[in-house]
């Protein structure tokens, strides 16, 4: 089970991120998770929103460059060692994590982390086998 992520190219200049959040709020898109990876000159903004197809259409209309990527949401027990256990399982399965970040807030004592790997279905299966739950779009209030 995967979640759609929107990645947007950000030029490193004042107001770029503010522009995007403004456009999304104007169109009543709600952000569930956000992450930025950057170099000195540019960056990649990764977003999980409640309505990915609406958000991507709007951003494209505004001239942004973006790409949609499937990612896996993982329920991580919000206790010491919770993340460590998850990473241990992924590592044992010899899967490379390209990047990961967390979703705002938690639910039922569990935090949600977003994982990007090359084989998203494979990751879901590995986690399932280890008794670690994945989180679907509906759990995050995605349309």
């Amino acid at each position: 089970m995967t979640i759609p992520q929107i990645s947007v190219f950000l030029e490193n200049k004042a107001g770029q991120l503010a522009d995007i959040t403004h456009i999304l709020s104007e169109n009543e898109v709600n952000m569930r998770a956000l992450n930025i990876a950057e170099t000195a000159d540019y960056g990649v903004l990764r977003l999980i929103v409640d309505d990915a197809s609406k958000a991507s259409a709007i951003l494209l209309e505004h001239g942004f460059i973006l790409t949609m990527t499937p990612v896996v949401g993982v329920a991580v027990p919000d206790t010491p060692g919770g993340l460590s256990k998850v990473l241990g399982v992924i590592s044992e399965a010899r899967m490379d994590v390209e990047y990961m970040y967390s979703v705002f807030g938690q639910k039922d004592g569990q935090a949600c982390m977003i994982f990007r790997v090359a084989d998203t279905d494979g990751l879901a299966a590995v986690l399932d086998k280890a008794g670690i739950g994945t989180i679907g779009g509906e759990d995050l209030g995605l349309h």
Partner: protein
Amino acid sequence: MERYYQKEIETADREQILAWQNERLVKQVRHVWDNVPYYRKKMEEKGVAPEDIQSVEDLHKLPFLTKDDLREAYPYGLLATPLKNCVRIQSTSGTTGRRVVAFYTQHDIDLWEDCCARAITAAGGTDGDVCHVCYGYGLFTGGPGLNGGSHKVGCLTLPMSSGNTDRQLQFMVDLEATILCCTPSYAAFLAESIHERGLRDKIKLKAGIFGAEAWSEEMRQDIQEKLGIKAYDIYGLTETSGPGVAFECSEQTGMHINEDHFIAEIIDPDTGEVLPEGSKGELVFTAITKEAFPLLRYRTRDICVLTREKCSCGRTHVKMSKPMGRSDDMLIVKGVNVFPSQIETVLLEQGYPANYQIIVDRVNNSDTIEVMVEMTPENFSDNLGKITEMEKGLVSALKAMLGIYAKVRLVAPKSITRSEGKAVRVIDKRKI
């Protein structure tokens, strides 16, 4: 007292110079007609025969040569002597597409080195001097030209080539170099390094001969003060031999063109019409003594002014101003010729849009070049590593094409300024 390397030539009266030029031009046109089918065809197309050229007055009848001709005729199309008579090539920096290969007989090298020797002597050089040459050696004409000129003057020559600042400074101090030859930006860099290391009292430099790139009067003052020397400009291009086509004298108000070897004209770059003395226009050279690679009416694309006003140094050869710009889009960055079209070629090859902007600047007396490229959906990825990987690929492809490092800056789509629907390709922030 002013010194000359070839006094009779350098101070000859106007009539004498003209007499040399007339005689040599007629002979050279015949030589080219007989040996260079490429140029002969150009002459035929223009309806000019060797008999039509009787003196410098007739020069305007000859067709021009441009860098495009050199490219088209690459490598041997403009060669005027059998290859077995040639002993050397030199080449411009730049790419395969724009590379210029010039050939030299031993006689050509002799005359070229004479020109450089005149420049070194004008800068006060004698056989008692130690001449530190840190222009690049190799295909670039700077090192070999000044090296040869220095030998002719009888200076102890330090063939340092460029780079390795520690070694440069060590030799400069230990061997008590008195004349420095390099690009002005490298001279400024060395001056800074000398200051930082507190070596100012340990150097014995008295003069510098700096060329291959544009530099301002302010930069001259700065270098002169920091190094306690007199800084002289020198001009030349591979197509016409190399540095030494023109050089500055003690007056420092322009460069004397070696008119016994080169006839200079100023033309309107748009119409090709010859302009009267004192007009600002494109500099055109006719090489009248070269054997292997004698270019007639070669368009340098450098914009400048010629003056025959009497010079206090006693030299009678015409003086050219520092180049004030270009009549094409060529940029000179760190002494290297850069054409925007080369950058465009690389961008397209690497899958980037041909929508780009080149920003040239001078930071701490050293040129920088930055290429702004718009991101595209195809090149974008959620994985930052993949983007930086592509960026690195682009940087190395640019390095391979240009011969120098150019910084790449990826920017948002449609963020590169367009004026009147046409993109502004080059922003040169250097104040020269």
